């Protein structure tokens, strides 16, 4: 089990690329297949872009997890405006910004789990996980 945690600060658009590359590399190292690596990289890209677009800045933490089973866990933390209605945000087609949607429903489908902690005006933390199948 890898004990390292990769931390990427999101300050500019190029950091989205850094975050998803880091996630892809770790997924590859962990033994995820190519399609899963792509799913993970894509989900990270969506969520990191959210951080950049809605909060302007934040951070992404990528690590290996082993509960309930071995997998990759990526956490997105920002002190942005927060999400008023989480259920709505998880519905396809929802958007308050200039993009078509927050990318949350898509990311949720690509990963095995997605959790949101948010407080309007304070910030948002999104955690996604994908587990290695046996």
């Amino acid at each position, binding site marked *: 089990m890898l004990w390292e945690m990769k931390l990427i600060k999101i300050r500019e*658009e*190029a950091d989205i*690329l850094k975050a*998803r590359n880091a996630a*892809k590399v770790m997924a590859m190292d962990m033994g995820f297949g*190519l*399609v899963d*690596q*792509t*799913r993970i*990289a*894509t989900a990270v*890209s*969506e969520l990191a*872009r959210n951080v950049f677009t809605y909060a302007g800045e934040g951070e992404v933490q990528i690590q290996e997890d082993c509960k309930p089973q071995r997998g990759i866990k990526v956490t997105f933390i920002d002190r942005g405006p927060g999400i008023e209605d989480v259920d709505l945000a998880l519905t*396809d087609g929802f958007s308050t910004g200039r*993009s*078509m*949607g927050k*990318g949350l*429903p*898509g990311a949720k*489908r*690509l990963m095995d789990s997605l959790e949101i902690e948010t407080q309007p005006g304070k910030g948002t933390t999104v955690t996604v996980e994908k587990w290695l199948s046996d």
Partner: protein
Amino acid sequence: MLQNASIPILKLKEFLIVSIQTDLHDRMAEQLQYDILHRISETNAKGVLIDISALEMVDSFIGRTLADTAKMAATLDADIVIVGMQPAVAITLVELGLSMGEVRTAINLDEGYELLKEELVEETPQTDEAESVAAEAEEDDNGSV
């Protein structure tokens, strides 16, 4: 690795070929869109083949950019065909729920080219047929044999 800011758009007969080999940031995506539209009107191109075989990942931002470019090109009477989508990319795009709308895809450049050519051929004969039918009708009216 030095990289140039703009993605080249190559003209081949009545079509344009664009090979995307890099990440598309906001500005680059906008620039590419503008460049493609500009080239379409400059060259009067009828179609654009966008090769994404080098992309290992296409997220909603890039997907939207491609879909929007296709819509804009359509207003200039040009069809866009995305070619070379990697299998893993195709799978994730579907799971992302990203509708590429009316954007056509083809498995590779060759197929995409054939697709565009077929479309072009389909457009012209109808006009000819309509013209000959109209000409016949006129002859009949004039009472000529």
